[in-house]
């Protein structure tokens, strides 16, 4: 142990960070039986993709699995419980139950109590930090920025700016992220920090907030042994600072195992052992399974209780062993009030060292006064909004290549169409050409906007739905930040797109017409963007969203009044054309250009003049005055916005689905 201290950081600083001054928490699980319906965990679109139709979904009896059987324990602040489960699947279900995030499972009997109250979403959001197994972070922010934004959202109002920054620095140091603090987080397509480092950033996001109860799903997997050890040291220090720490581990190393104080060993849902870590060996010795010398007790007992699936025989044998062990344990702990196994002979010495020794040793009066409960409020609506807005903008701006690609695309489209309808030549553009130009101008830029919008929303949604689950911010501020945050970029795109095209095609030279033209572009892209936002909040996967977006846009495109004349549309498509923003945009652009113009037409030898009004009437594009069109377009995009808000509010997309 002395040697270990020289290898790992000795715990000299008992900084403020590690002590929790709120009142102590108790987590109790009573006779919990939890059943998971495997079939219902598969989302509908995936079933559909396997050609299973909804009417064939009748419940398969085999799909119900007892994920947790008869689990009972009670732990309080100051304790760290490690869940070691040997079967590789469904390891996280206990934490799902505790945090009320059941994915297709249901509690058959028993309950989970936090401080004596049954756990609910509200309670969980307020007092539990949950680190999930997969990393959901915005890829273009640096590690420090990621943490700083969370600090601004999550830490109570009472924290000053410098205190927040200090907290972030502490977390960075604690998780050994100093060398990559200014590196992008990255994802599978953008290069960023390494996988282990990303894992630590996710942990840091929850450590920042640092409430009374901390839950970690596999915090050490994917980390190298050294960092894993340091992390568990950190967690155990947090626990000693009067917090309740729950973590699940997979194959703990012997030195990490020694850091745990309580262990819950489960196999296929049954409790094999629950109690102090240092008593585990003794317990198993008592029931006839001594741990051989020189081997890691955690490994040994996990192997002992795990289900060996190599052949049918070994499977049956190991299952039987596991269930008999579980029954035995249940018998042994019946009499204890917290259902943790204690070694009776040395009862006094051992348990004292666990429960009293670990209770907060250094909570001074001063600290308690500093963080009193009344001030424990999260930042207000407006501050959340500004933080989210700046997070949104930073994440967008940092992605230089994407920005450049988008700008370049817009410019290219503009130049292409502009030169195609180059209007400075000998003759002006004909009526046919002008209307084609206006249609293409109005319809092309929304097309790219729809697809970019959908891809982008889907890449961000993992973060969004996790934040919402965590209760980091309500939907309102996010909605406003998302809608407003992309406006500047959109304006720039419209200007890049609108100016060259207008000049090249030599459209009406009046400045008023030019600005009206830009205004309609702006309306068109607004509608397209809000439509993309709505679709991506409505549908579960990117493929489905892209498909639906394509369909919807094509519908609007075809009913836009150019490719197929408006008079020729039969009833249903003509209704569609009433809400088609492509059509209204086209109508607006046409009216701007054609009103007050007269064209000279030659047919044979006769030349006669056609007024712009007549052209508009012939195409059925004079139904509404210009201001009405503006109002209709604004109405359409508001409609999409309302739908977007409703989808965000009522359709709870799972944050972990993307394929």
């Amino acid at each position, binding site marked *: 142990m002395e040697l270990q201290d020289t290898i790992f950081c000795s715990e000299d600083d008992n900084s403020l960070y590690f002590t929790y001054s709120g009142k102590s928490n108790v987590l109790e699980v009573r006779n919990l039986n939890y059943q998971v319906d495997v079939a219902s965990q598969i989302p509908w679109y995936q079933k559909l993709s396997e050609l299973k139709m909804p009417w064939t979904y009748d419940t398969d009896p085999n799909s119900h699995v007892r994920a947790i059987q008869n689990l009972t324990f009670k732990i309080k602040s100051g304790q760290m419980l490690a869940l070691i489960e040997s079967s590789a699947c469904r390891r996280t279900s206990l934490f799902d139950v505790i945090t009320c995030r059941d994915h297709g499972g249901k509690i058959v009997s028993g309950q989970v109590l936090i401080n004596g109250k049954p756990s609910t979403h509200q309670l969980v959001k307020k007092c539990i930090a949950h680190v999930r197994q997969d990393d959901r972070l915005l890829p273009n922010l640096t590690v420090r920025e990621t943490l700083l934004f969370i600090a601004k959202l999550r830490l109570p109002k009472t924290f000053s700016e410098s205190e927040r920054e200090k907290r972030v620095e502490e977390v960075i140091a604690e998780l050994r992220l100093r060398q990559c603090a200014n590196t992008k987080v990255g994802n599978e397509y953008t290069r960023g920090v390494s996988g282990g480092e990303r894992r630590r950033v996710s942990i840091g996001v929850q450590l920042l907030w640092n409430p009374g109860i901390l839950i970690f799903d596999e915090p050490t997997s994917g980390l190298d042994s050294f960092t894993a050890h340091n992390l568990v040291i950190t967690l155990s220090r947090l626990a000693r600072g009067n917090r309740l720490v729950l973590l699940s581990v997979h*194959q703990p190393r012997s*030195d990490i195992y020694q850091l745990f104080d309580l262990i819950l060993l489960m196999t296929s849902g049954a409790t094999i052992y629950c109690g102090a870590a240092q008593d585990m060996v003794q317990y198993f010795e008592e029931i006839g399974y001594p741990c051989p010398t020189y081997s890691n007790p955690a490994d040994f007992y996990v192997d002992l209780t795990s289900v060996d699936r190599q052949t049918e025989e070994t499977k049956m044998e190991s299952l039987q062993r596991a269930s008999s062990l579980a029954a035995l344990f249940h018998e042994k702990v019946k009499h204890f009030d917290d259902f943790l196994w204690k070694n009776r002979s040395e009862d006094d010495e051992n348990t004292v060292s666990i429960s009293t020794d670990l209770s907060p040793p250094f909570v001074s009066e001063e600290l308690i006064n500093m963080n009193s409960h009344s001030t424990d409020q999260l930042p207000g609506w407006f501050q959340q909004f500004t933080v989210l807005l700046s997070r949104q903008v930073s994440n967008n701006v940092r992605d230089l290549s994407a920005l450049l*690609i988008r700008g370049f695309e817009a410019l290219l489209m503009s130049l292409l169409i502009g*030169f*195609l309808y180059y209007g400075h030549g000998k003759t002006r553009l004909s009526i046919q050409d002008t209307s084609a130009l206006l249609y293409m101008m109005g319809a092309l830029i929304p097309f790219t906007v729809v697809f970019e919008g959908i*891809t982008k929303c889907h890449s961000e949604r993992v973060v969004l739905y996790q934040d919402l689950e965590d209760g980091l911010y309500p939907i309102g501020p996010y909605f406003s930040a998302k809608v407003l945050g992309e406006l500047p970029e959109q304006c720039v795109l419209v200007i890049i797109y609108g100016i060259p095209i207008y000049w090249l095609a030599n459209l009406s030279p009046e400045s008023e017409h030019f600005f009206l033209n830009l205004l309609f572009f702006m309306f068109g892209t607004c509608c397209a963007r809000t439509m993309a936002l709505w679709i991506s909040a409505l549908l579960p996967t990117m493929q489905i969203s892209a498909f639906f977006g394509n369909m919807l846009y094509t519908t609007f495109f075809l009913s836009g009044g150019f490719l197929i*004349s408006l008079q020729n549309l039969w009833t249903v498509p003509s209704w569609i054309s009433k809400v088609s923003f492509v059509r209204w945009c086209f109508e607006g652009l046409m009216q701007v250009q054609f009103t007050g113009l007269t064209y000279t037409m030659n047919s044979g030898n006769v030349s006669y003049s056609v007024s712009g009004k007549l052209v508009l009437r012939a195409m059925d594009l004079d139904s509404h005055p210009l201001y009405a069109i503006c109002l209709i377009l604004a109405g359409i995009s508001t409609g999409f916005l309302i739908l977007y808000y409703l989808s965000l509010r009522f359709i709870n997309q799972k944050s972990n689905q993307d394929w």
Partner: protein
Amino acid sequence: MVSVPQNNVSVLKVSYTVRERLGPWWDISSYHKKWTRQILKDVSFHIESGQIMGILGNSGSGKTTLLDAIAGRLSHKSNFVGQVYVNGHELHQDQFQDCFSYVLQNDTLLSYLTIEESLTYIALLALQKHSCDSIKKKVDAVMAELRLSHVANSVIGSRILGGISEGERRRVSVAAQLLQDPQVMLLDEPTTGLDCMTANQIVMLLSELAQKGRIVIITVHQPRSELFQVFNKICIMSFGELVFCGGPSDMITFFESCGYSCPEHSNPFDFYVDLTSVDTQSKVRELETYSRVQTISTAYKSSELFLNTLEAIEETKCKVKDLPPIPFKCKDSPDSFAKLWILLRRITRNFSRDKVGLIMRLSQNLLFGLFMAFFLLRLSDDLLKGAVQDRVGFIYQCMSAPPHTGILNALALFPALRAVGDQESKDGLYQKWHMLLAYVLHFLPFSVISVALFSIFIYWTVGLHPAASSFGYFFAAVTVPHIVGELLTLVFLGVIQNPNVVNGGVGLLNVAGVLVGSGLVRSLEDMPTAFKMLSYLTFQKYGSEILIVNEFSGLKFTCGGLSNISTGVEASCPFSHGTQFIERNFPGAGSRFTTDFLLLYAFLPALITLAIISFKIRDITILR
């Protein structure tokens, strides 16, 4: 055992550096500064047949780079210093892939094949000259060796589909390499992502492979203490340096001599790796731990163990003549045609099990047809009821939508094949463009059938020109855009990794092509010269000319119910015959009908060639 030749691999003073930018782009001052990062620093070791070596170290310590260096797969060869010897011979650039087999961390396997099929196809690709019987025997033997026989007929599956377990998948990857009888096997993190029992089983299996006379080098992440005696050699890396390399017992004595003895109840692997780690929590800790690592590595460099290693390397270099030649993998790979044929069978077998995929591929054009029919209902001949406008709109859609469905097809299917092709071409089984060409051959019939379904439906529903030959021309002209869309996507997939970017890029190209080339939204005559030139490069030009001529040439229009139009009656009825429309908007198109067809079909070979070139470029650009 006696008959097995004694091979050895030695690595002498290997160093590797990369140049990196200091900061991100928005931090301009630091972005312009570059620094040199040393990833490998003077690494030497020596290993012989029958041995298994485990490389340990924290993330970022250079384990994987060391493996890449041995396998000759580094991205910037110019920054590489040092030599890799096999039996005393220094390897040439092109000999690396024939000598080492390299199993990467992520398994790239086709998800709809069974284990036996996967292995058989790889065996066919690697050892074509053998008879079918001997290939079957070989596959059976390898499956038995890796204990896969009981699941031989299970479909591999994927993350979404389910299928065989992670451990089995990993073993299939190893088995695929074993088919070629490599004498030196390199494995990058074969145990990561597996549960502890499976991980142990894999390492034990690998050590058995080594005991049969092979050399096995693996990087391992947190091995368990039971494996301590399994490895013949253990390397510990820290910050690019080899801190220690030697047998398990040497390891304990060496670290004891440095003053660090492993406590009895802890895992020696973990203990020694922690000992050589650098803690970056604070500057003080960093310096403290770094100096400890330096002390240990200096001690190792001056130890007898290291001097012995250097001596052994020198010895093999001197004894080159007595040693066996470089042990190449079994390689009787067939000629290009045979490879293509095998790949085609493999791809077809794989995708034929993907029912949803098949249905989607065959029906998506038809779906789009339904959509169009919904809007158009039936074309009329009355000019006042949009006879021309609707037809032009219809042809516009026929030119722009089928390429789009082609793009979706290619994006859904090809990236998986591309990953397999990247991997297997590095193993020297075939070239990347073989895979590409096999895929092209595979999708062609499906595309044709899909377009045929679409054409049959839409042609008679909306009521185009009723002659059978016209239908034939229509079908022939719409098939090409669909296939071209798919081919274009393949061209881009060769040089761009991210499928979403490809989707956007090809989509835009398609739109631009319709605008510039088709002459439907802007008549070609009125365009600036540059665009006229450009339009000759678009397939849409030829396609839409064919469709226009095909549809309009026999057509007679009415004007508001009158079948005869006296000239100049109304501005809105400028023509009475379709040919007039053709002459006005596409002058001379009627006489170019055959040429247009030839040129349209010329796009197919041209794009296939382009795609092959793009995949040749991929050979150069892709790193790892």
